[in-house]
């Protein structure tokens, strides 16, 4: 091939006076950046993705990864990333792939919303002294008695782990998240890759997905769950199917997905049996019948332009839980242009859908779960005040497990043992450690949410739900405020 014009993005700096040539970096880098030849250490910077694995493990703190110094003349329209993408496409002639969530600098509405607190006129609550109720139940709440055929799922806190399929992530991720969900009394989600037999014992905390590829769907799978989720779309790639490259379809993955090993696993863009709300209603009913009306059925859709009409249709089709995935939602692999340019923010979609369902009087029939870009407990509180019953977290959970957001999930060479099925790499995530860390994260957020609620003078999460008076917009225009249904900072009420 002729000269490639791609310059390295990152530069590995090794402090020779500290380096002890132990070779840990060489051994750990799946991208083969580090090399040790007869006592001579050298690096191949081009391959570096800044995952920081070597930096974290170097026992001599000899390494630092830096941005490659001034690779292009400064230009705020033709940014280095833009130029690089063109080079890459000129090299390959293919669609650009990307992992994790939309990294672009679109406005983050969470960062333009401020929370309220009590002062004098109503007392704040000290969460250490008084009970705080974060208990959340999900499902259709219009049932009148306990005998109703409208099952509810109860969570200790309104945070669940979002769908990440086995195959796109390692089994150890599933093990970590399922154990943490069990410990914290919440749910984790299998994603569309089936449920590994090792995890059947976590069924009471599992959301199992039925997606367009129908991977791993069989009666026992549906039975081994707390909730069944029909996946229509995903925030990172609305309207797009999935493609798990054959290289990631290991024997284990294949067995769990019930497909041949080492062959590409293609999820079609639409479900081929769902071309209308009526079709969706049929699938929902089918799943309910198959599981004896014992489990709530969730439907997950991506936040797109006419999300409120879609939401209304999904609820009327019989969904007990509606999960909406905003445009910051992450993925194991998506075409970069789709990930970065399709969909709308979750904050907007959530407010819109909550209002619409209230207006139509069907809000009680469904629980709303917000997903896509929830970064911390404040985001959780804001999402709930905007109308969510609970949130899904994925990126935050992976970061807790060690993800450094290098966004190269689609290569299958995740150095942190997360987005990979290579045994030597997935070994790097000890589920004991992962479960503990994911659990710690939830615990920490639980504490913080209680603290924020206490400051607001609210002692039950139910009183916060859809309580947009607890929010004020800052730096938002009248149109945005109207859609979000919040007042501007300084407005009384």
């Amino acid at each position: 091939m002729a000269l490639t014009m791609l310059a390295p993005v990152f530069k590995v700096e090794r402090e020779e006076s500290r380096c002890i040539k132990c070779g840990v970096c060489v051994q750990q880098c799946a991208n083969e950046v580090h090399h040790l030849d007869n006592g001579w250490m050298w690096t191949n910077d081009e391959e570096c993705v800044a995952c920081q694995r070597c930096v974290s493990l170097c026992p001599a703190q000899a390494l630092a990864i830096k941005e490659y110094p001034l690779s292009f003349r400064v230009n705020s329209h033709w940014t280095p990333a833009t130029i690089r993408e063109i080079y890459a496409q000129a090299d390959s002639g293919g669609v650009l792939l990307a992992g994790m969530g939309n990294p672009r600098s679109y406005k983050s509405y969470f960062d333009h919303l401020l929370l309220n607190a009590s002062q004098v006129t109503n007392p704040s609550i000290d969460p250490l002294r008084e009970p705080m109720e974060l208990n959340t139940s999900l499902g259709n709440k219009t049932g009148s008695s306990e005998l109703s055929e409208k099952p509810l799922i109860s969570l200790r806190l309104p945070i669940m782990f979002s769908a990440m399929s086995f195959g796109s992530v390692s089994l150890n991720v599933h093990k970590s998240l399922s154990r943490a969900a069990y410990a914290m009394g919440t749910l984790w989600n299998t994603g569309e890759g089936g449920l590994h037999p090792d995890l059947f014992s976590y069924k009471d905390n599992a959301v199992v997905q039925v997606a367009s590829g129908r991977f791993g769907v069989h009666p026992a799978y549906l039975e081994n769950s707390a909730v069944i989720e029909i996946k229509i779309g995903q925030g990172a790639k609305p309207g797009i199917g999935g493609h798990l490259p054959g290289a990631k379809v290991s024997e284990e993955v294949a067995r769990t997905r019930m497909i041949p090993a080492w062959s590409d696993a293609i999820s079609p863009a639409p479900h081929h049996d769902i071309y209308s709300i009526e079709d969706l209603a049929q699938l929902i009913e089918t799943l309910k019948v198959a599981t004896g009306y014992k489990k709530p059925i969730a439907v997950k859709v991506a936040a797109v332009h006419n999300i409120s009409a879609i939401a209304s249709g999904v609820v009327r089709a019989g969904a007990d839980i509606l999960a909406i995935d905003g445009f910051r939602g992450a993925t194991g692999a998506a075409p970069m242009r789709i990930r970065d340019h399709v969909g709308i923010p979750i904050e907007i979609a959530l407010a819109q859908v909550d209002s619409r369902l209230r207006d139509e009087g069907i809000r009680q029939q469904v629980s709303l779960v917000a997903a896509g870009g929830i970064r911390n407990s404040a985001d959780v509180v804001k999402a709930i005040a905007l109308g969510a019953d609970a949130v899904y977290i994925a990126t935050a959970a992976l970061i807790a497990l060690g993800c450094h957001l290098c966004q190269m999930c689609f290569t299958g060479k995740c150095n942190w043992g997360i987005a990979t099925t290579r045994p030597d790499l997935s070994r790097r995530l000890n589920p004991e450690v992962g479960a503990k860390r994911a659990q710690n994260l939830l615990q920490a957020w639980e504490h913080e949410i209680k603290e924020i609620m206490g400051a607001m003078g609210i002692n039950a999460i139910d009183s916060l739900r859809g309580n947009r008076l607890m929010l004020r917009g800052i730096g938002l225009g009248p149109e945005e405020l109207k859609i979000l249904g919040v007042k501007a900072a300084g407005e009384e009420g």
Partner: protein
Amino acid sequence: MKITAIPDYCLGCGLCRIYCAAAHDGFQGNVLRAFKHGSPLPRINLINWQGLTYFNVCRHCQDAPCINACISGAMQRDENGRVYVDNSRCVSCYTCILVCPFGHPQVSRERPGILKCDLCRESNREPACLKHCPNEAIIWDEESGPTGSAKNKVHGE
């Protein structure tokens, strides 16, 4: 008492050996001092076997053949059950190497005597390998090792 590595989670990165060397011979855990200004002598070994890494550490056997076989009385067990070698007594007959079924004790070119895991009794801290394993793959073998308070007692940190 003994430690073990869970093969499923051992990365084979070798950090255990580095921190092991730094925890002994008076380096006080300082990796740079050990590797830049001293001769680091790790007591443990990693063996690559068909894609798995075998953590070759002392079992501190209940019925340690090396103590039984040592001709100079250098191989001993301390009050906490740790098998260690007193290199001032060792005459390098290497009988312990011969009788250890796990091939644990090693020799070093740099120094007479034997290198073997002593669970960091020198520093009386938690074994350095266990403390620094990035994946917590090295654990106390609870079947034999002290648990809870006993462990804290031995490694009172």
